[in-house]
């Protein structure tokens, strides 16, 4: 094994930041029960960039929502660090999201009436946290938004908007960043930019990132890919390439 391969191994084996055990989520729709998650056990390690993949309806978004405390599982547990987040009251979940989790969504990531800078600083303001100016400058520099800080989202391109969202998620160095199809609405060049930036921040800033995607190219930026089907984890790949991921995905769809 060469140096470059040892490195990611180490990251995936460092202590887990997020631990989920026996996650079940059932939806009632028109009398019939749908198992969105059928008992998921999964760990996410510090500094690791993990992609969750699966066909439509496999439950990947639901898994992310439950991991992030946006949605409550029907049963099972999720720990963020030492905190069991399942069973927390809404108020505590809100504080948890505010202080320890970062979010990047597919679209509608920004508040239209706030400038790029205000959007980036929003979580700190909600938490009344003082901003690490140095980190802010660094992140802004890296995502290349220096000259766009005063613009309203409407004046930014899709890629720029998404980079603002990334900067916002990373600014407070949360324990984990959840990204839900962050490149879903972007052209491939802008998407690649965002993904590179996510990967770099995992490596350079020891940032734990969990990304839900259905795009094998996007998943190939991750250190590890977890495959989900019908609400269960069915496969896992470390050191993924786009081709490898596509092949696995295809196999899943066929099975």
């Amino acid at each position, binding site marked *: 094994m060469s140096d470059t391969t040892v490195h990611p191994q180490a990251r995936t084996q460092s202590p887990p930041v997020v631990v989920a055990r026996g996650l079940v989520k059932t939806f009632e729709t028109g009398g019939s029960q749908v198992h969105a998650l059928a008992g998921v056990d999964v760990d996410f390690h510090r500094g690791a960039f993990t992609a969750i993949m699966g066909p439509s309806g496999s439950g990947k978004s639901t898994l992310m929502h439950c991991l992030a405390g946006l949605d409550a599982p029907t049963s099972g547990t999720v720990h963020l660090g030492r905190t069991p987040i399942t069973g927390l009251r809404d108020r505590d979940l*809100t504080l948890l999201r505010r202080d320890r989790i970062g979010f990047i969504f597919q679209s509608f990531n920004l508040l239209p009436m706030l400038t790029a800078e205000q959007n980036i600083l929003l979580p700190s303001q909600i938490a009344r946290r003082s901003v690490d100016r140095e980190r802010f400058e660094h992140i802004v520099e890296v995502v290349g938004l220096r000259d766009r800080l005063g613009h309203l989202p409407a004046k930014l391109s899709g890629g720029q908007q998404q980079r603002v969202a990334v900067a916002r998620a990373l600014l407070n160095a949360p324990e984990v960043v959840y990204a839900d199809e962050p490149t879903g609405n972007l052209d491939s060049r802008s998407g690649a930019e965002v993904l590179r930036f996510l990967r770099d921040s995992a490596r350079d800033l020891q940032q734990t990132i969990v990304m839900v995607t259905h795009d094998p190219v996007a998943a190939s930026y991750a250190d590890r890919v977890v495959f989900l089907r019908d609400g269960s984890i069915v496969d896992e790949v470390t050191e993924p390439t786009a081709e490898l991921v596509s092949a696995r995905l295809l196999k899943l769809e066929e099975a």
Partner: protein
Amino acid sequence: MLRTTLAGLRLHTSRYVTTALAILLGVMFVTGTMVFADTLESDYESSVMGSATSVDAIAEPEEPEFDPEAGPPPPAVFGEEDLQRVRDLDEVADADGRVEGQAVLLDSDGRAFGMTPPAALSLGEVSRFGASEGTLPSGGDEIALATSTAGESGFGVGDTVTVLDPDQEEREFTVTGLVELGIDPSYTMGGAMVLDRAAAEEMTGAAGYVEIDALAAEGHTDEEAADAMAAVLGGGSDVRTGEQFGLDMAQEAGADTAMMRVALLLFAFIAMFVAAIVIYNTFAIVIAQRQREMALLRCVGAKRSQVFGSVLAESTVVGLVSSVLGVLAGIGVGMLGARFGSGLLGSGAGGPVDLVLTPAAVLSGLAVGTVVTVVSALIPALRATRVSPLAALRTSSTSAGLDKRTGWLRTAAGLAAFAASALMVWLSLMGETTETGMMIVTVAALTAFVGVVVLGPLLVRGIVHVAGLVLRRTGVASMLAVDNSTRNPKRAATAMIALTVGATLITGYSVVSASTESTMNAVFEEQFPVDYQLSPQFAMDEPTGGEPAEEAADEDGSGTDVPETETVPEGVRSALASAPEIDQVMGQRTDFIDGEGSADGSGMPMSLMVSAYTDTDLATDMPSELVSGDLEDMGPGRVALSEDYADGLTAGDTFTLPAEDGAIDLEVAAVTEEAGQIHGVVLDPQDFDQAFPGRTGDDMLYVRGAPGADPSELRTAVHDAVDDHPTVQVASMAEMKNQFSEVLDIAFYTIAAMLALAILIAVFGISNTMALSVLERTRESALLRALGLSRAQLRRMLGVEAVLLCLIGALIGITLGVVFGWAGAASVLPDLILTVPFAQIGVFVAIAVVAGLLASIMPARRAARTSITGSLAGE
């Protein structure tokens, strides 16, 4: 297409709930007013008709025409022979006459009841009035009271009351019944009592009949009886059948009801106007939110006209449904109003009122509600037609509703409106204080309002920006609220303007009211720097009250047998003067000389008002603005004139007083400005006695307490002095001021209550705007929640936004109200003392804050409740 519309309406019912409420409230006001007024009118009509048609013919003497040469006319009455002639008619079965005069009635404290002595009448065997409770008096020691008088005095059947005869001798009567005399103001204002015939003549000194009521004989119609009576009574009489008389009375009363109806409808109009703004805003927002829906319709082939029609159809349905509910609510409100408010017009005996529901009441409510709704939706409907089919394919959600531009044209137009308004106010203040001044101020206010409408978005942004400087520091919720409230300034402006209407009106009125009060207080203090004012009870020699009291004073002076109730008895003055608590007792005597010449050459004789003040130092006790001379120079042989009486004379000139016993030449000591305390010709008391040798006694006494005297002791001293003279009216300046304030307060609260509905509708509008905005920002709310904004913070954010909107609306309204309330009052009242009722305005601001919080409750609940994951997944 209609099916699409209705399906859409069913789907979006919740968006229209508050709008429907706004329409409902407005329509309720309209219909309620109509039902209330109709019911009162018919209730009164039936009671008048009932009383008038209880007799068949009614004859009244015609008022003789006033002839200035002949002096005051004798009171018009029918004589005994007139009644006999009527009784002798074949067409008349029976007839009797009503005797009417005035007598002093003592209240339970032994003081004279009312400002003027109440009417005292005997009804006769045949009369259109009868006892509504108990029986009519049948003997010399029995009395019946008008229901209104019984209510005011607190006397009831079985009580003993004291009435003064013309010689001021007390005589006691037992109350045997109550009589409903209707709403004739001479009875309701002054009070009335019914005595038996002999007692009435004895107590009042009245002779003759003021009305003869007759019953038609068997086989003769009412008209025949009336015609026969008119024939025997001659030209000086007005004879009508009972029915005609009732109809005429009802029409007069109808005029009162009509005035009240108009006043209430005016407030209903304001409420409807505010509702129209709310409706417009709702449709504008809903159409903007449904752009893609509209575009989709166009994509699948709907024509512009069909889109237009669909929006109008939607507004028609909303308007019609809300109006139907509003009409129903209005009927209920009108019924309640008639049940509890019928006392206002003195109609009925308080019995159950039959609800009158005219088609006009229902149709006007329906029409007003529906038409206002459809018209308000016209512009949004037009806007909907401009949506291009391509919009269906666009997915921009971030840029939607971010409209920050304000065209220079708009700015210029708004500023021009303000400038024009300011110019008009300036003009109205420069000009004379006339009605046109008030009109100009009204137009100026409307112009300024247009300016606010035009500049609304700019104002909202400006004010929010300033408020934001502070608010932004108070936390992220406030910061977001500040940004949210300016993201769609047009929408925000329209919502807050609905509130501005009510705030302007209520503040304007409160400024007028407060300024009037302080101005009047100042006038009181300046003109009557005294503590008590004593006056005789004004007497009207003639029951119909066509004759001014001053004329009566003339007669007294010439020594007729009419008692001198028009001057304050000398004993009162001496008693006051001897009281240690009292520093000074000033007397005022006034008389009139009918002038030979005419003031303006119109041929009308000018009556000269001549006064003298005893024990009064004019210069210090009645300080006045002087045109020339000095009041210090007053004394025997001198005269002070107000400018309108001076006829160009100045101090030092000679004024000739055309007294009856020969002209008196006097030197002008001072000429004072008009409308001051010195009015007319003021003589030295010595000269006054010479000019009016028969005059004794004072018309009015002014009492000033000793410095440091205890107010309650002073009060006791004054009341002790008049103890033996029950008819002397004692007015305390403090009490008068209080009464005046009370009247103003009642007017204020009435108007505030009427405007409350318009304000409530505006608050619904703001709540609706918030709710629709929240709907539009569902994903934003979800994002904020995901980022860690707590539910409480989200609610606070919306609360602050709503409060901001309400406050801006209220503050603009308060500003307009203060400016135009002041300008309006100043244009009517000269020397207005501008008083801004800060306490009241503070209350308005507090109400605006509370209204904002209330308006945000529902939207905030909805925003906080929505699921984060569901909203984020949307689209």
